[in-house]
């Protein structure tokens, strides 16, 4: 950056306007650039110091949890937290992260009326939505997968069964991806409806936090069927239900014979969110 600046500053004489006849890259390049831009912005890179505070606090806490787990394991102790448990343990942190970052990615563009500048360029509405969504989901996944990898490296060096650990790690990555996709799509959809970042953040937190006690009450008061179905309605419990169905180790959630239903909801919810996002941006005009 500084080297660049020095070179540019050394040009003093006024050369006139020069036409550009170099390469013009595809829409795919523009969409990829937007994805990278969004991913960097998720962690506050290329932004002010203020924008870095929240993401890095969250990364710090999740890493600290992972570090504790790694240390306990290294000393031969037993922990309840495996690779697949980490996303659930960190789910509130991920929620806070998304409530801050999703508005940063989309509400900001709405508030600053940036969309006309994007949509008057080759990059299209679908590209925009997918790039932003991809950035958010990958960012959320990295926040979980990074610390999982930390535990793995520590365990591998500690002389644990390497292949067994690797298999567990991949299972953990899959859970992290599930959380990232489910949380990310819902958060981005909510954020895309609010142009004020604070409102968007509040709405994301509200949707998640309100569904939780409602589901808890239904589970406490309802029949066994209700207890097995209700967790689907909470984004916090849905991934654990799917985990119970696939791996049979979903903690305290009993899905009974409704496992496949959890799978279907787990696919439909993100799909519907993406569809609504696309519809929402189709309506944006200049």
């Amino acid at each position: 950056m500084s080297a660049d600046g020095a070179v540019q500053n050394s040009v003093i004489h006024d050369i006139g306007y020069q036409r550009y006849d170099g390469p013009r890259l595809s829409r795919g390049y523009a969409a990829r650039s937007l994805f990278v831009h969004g991913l960097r912005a998720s962690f506050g890179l290329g932004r002010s110091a203020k924008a870095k505070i929240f993401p890095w606090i969250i990364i710090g806490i999740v890493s600290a949890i992972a570090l504790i787990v790694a240390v306990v394991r290294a000393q031969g102790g037993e922990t309840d937290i495996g690779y697949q448990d980490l996303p659930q343990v960190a789910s509130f942190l991920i929620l806070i992260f998304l409530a801050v970052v999703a508005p940063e990615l989309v509400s900001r563009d709405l508030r600053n009326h940036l969309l006309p500048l994007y949509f008057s360029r080759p990059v299209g509405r679908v590209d925009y939505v997918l790039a932003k969504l991809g950035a958010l989901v990958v960012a959320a996944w990295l926040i979980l997968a990074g610390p999982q990898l930390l535990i793995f490296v520590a365990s591998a060096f500690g002389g644990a069964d390497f292949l067994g650990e690797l298999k567990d790690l991949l299972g953990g990555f899959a859970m992290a991806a599930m959380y990232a996709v489910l949380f990310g799509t819902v958060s981005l959809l909510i954020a895309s409806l609010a142009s004020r970042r604070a409102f968007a953040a509040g709405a994301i937190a509200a949707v998640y936090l309100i569904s939780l006690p409602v589901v808890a009450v239904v589970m406490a008061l309802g029949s066994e069927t209700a207890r097995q179905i209700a967790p689907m309605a909470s984004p916090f419990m849905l991934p654990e239900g799917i985990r119970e169905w696939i791996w049979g180790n979903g903690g305290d959630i009993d899905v009974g014979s409704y496992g496949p239903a959890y799978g279907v909801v787990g696919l439909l919810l993100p799909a519907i969110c993406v569809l609504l996002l696309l519809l929402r941006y189709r309506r944006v005009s200049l």
Partner: protein
Amino acid sequence: MAIIETRSLTKAYPRVVALDQLTLQVDPGVIGLVGANGAGKSTMIKVLLGLLAPTSGEVRVLGIDPVTRGHEVRARVGYMPEHDCLPPDMIAAEFVTHMARMSGLPKTVARERASEALRHVGLYEERYRQIGGYSTGMKQRVKLAQALVHDPDLLLLDEPTNGLDPAGRDAMLNLIHRIGNEFGISVVVCSHLLGEVERICDSLVAIEAGRLLRADRIESMTTGTDVLAIEVAEGTEALAEALAAKGIQPRLDQRALLVPLSNEDTYDVVLRTVADLDLPLHRLEQRHHRVAELFATEREASNVG
């Protein structure tokens, strides 16, 4: 080659017709697209960018159909929106670089051209400052720079002088004039202020209520169309009637009567008429035609017709 061509272009919304059978052909250069607010300028821009499909009719931008090949059109066109569209917490150079990449410029080229574009709009020294700290005039320049950064063949500027003080307006208009003449980029300037754009434009397109009022080169609008202003102390109406009877169509402009100065005889006819009616003549002067008056006559004519 015409940069913009439309044939019977119509865009009808459920309740209003925004563009009504618009047929025009625009040559390269600086083009003023003038019309009152709500005349259909914004709809026109959206159609040209391929973001809005016309109800009927045809449109070509740089020879490309934006309806079916919108991406290609948007890659070669730069657009500067009317309203604020800048992120205040971003550094100008980074923002323009980002927008260059969105237009498909490779990373390093994008950075170079962003610096260049900011230099051309006069923000070279200030380019590493946050946009939020810029004045309205500077923000307007950043908006122009992001439209210019990917070296488009056509610039669409929507009310580029909006919110600027007189000095800022002049600077912006001069800059647009330079872009059109020195940079070799065609520019469409949308404005509701005719007096402003007529100074810098090669041709004008005037629309009203979605219909084409007139599209022509500036020279052909102003040559040979001077008017004679006649002011009499009293009996203005009588004079107007008498002139009309002699085949000269006068138009009332405040206290003066304006008649087209079609040939040398007009002077004699006017003087003779005033003398016949025995009116006290205050003033008789030749006025150079402002384009605005031309449109006024057109509009009256079309209202009558």
